[in-house]
């Protein structure tokens, strides 16, 4: 649960993967909490070869939030790590379409086939 995860908050988590990592977006979805890491639900279900509906039924504990594409673009394009145009070209900065984001927890990383290593700084 959340408490277990908090124990890992002050350690570095290294994720080892076979495939190129899905893009991870550092986004503040509401004013009451700071930025957190999210994956696009559409990226996740594509990699898992699963429908969004099945994903949400099978993993109800993974938080999914909705954000407008314009807000998503605004926040992501401010990151110095997304300075490459090709990393953002799929998104429309003016779109009012809604995007589903799924919180990038250790559980989701494992689900996507990553091996995790924790390290005390």
């Amino acid at each position: 649960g959340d408490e277990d995860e908090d124990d890992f908050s002050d350690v570095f988590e290294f994720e080892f993967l076979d495939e190129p990592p899905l893009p991870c977006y550092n986004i503040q979805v509401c004013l009451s909490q700071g930025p957190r890491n999210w994956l696009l639900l559409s990226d996740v279900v594509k990699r898992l070869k699963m429908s969004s509906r099945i994903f949400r039924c099978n993993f109800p504990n993974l938080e999914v939030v909705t954000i407008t594409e314009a807000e998503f673009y605004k926040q992501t394009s401010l990151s110095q790590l997304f300075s490459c145009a090709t990393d953002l070209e799929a998104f429309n900065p003016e779109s009012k379409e809604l995007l589903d984001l799924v919180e990038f927890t250790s559980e989701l990383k494992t689900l996507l086939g990553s091996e995790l290593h924790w390290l005390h700084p």
Partner: protein
Amino acid sequence: HYFRYDEHVSLCLEKLRPPQPPDMLCPSQQKYVRCSVRAQIRHLRRVLCHRLGLSLQHVQILFDNEPLPDHMTMKQLWLSRWFGKPAPLLLHYSIKDKRR
């Protein structure tokens, strides 16, 4: 220190090819790594050594054939060597003489 909410970087980690002998120690083909922008090269070295079953002095991390300083953070690395380029950032590692 809530590293879990930090921005993360994606790295592609490749073993520096010859003159080294084929690597029998590498437990898998996994070569992509993701971690906090606040992680440093020395942390990545430690994790890599652990995976490869080697001691710290045997593994070096390089960018463009240049060994990277231990205290460089992933953010510094990204901004100084990879700004404007697409993820993942390409790094190499080399394994020195394994005599113990």
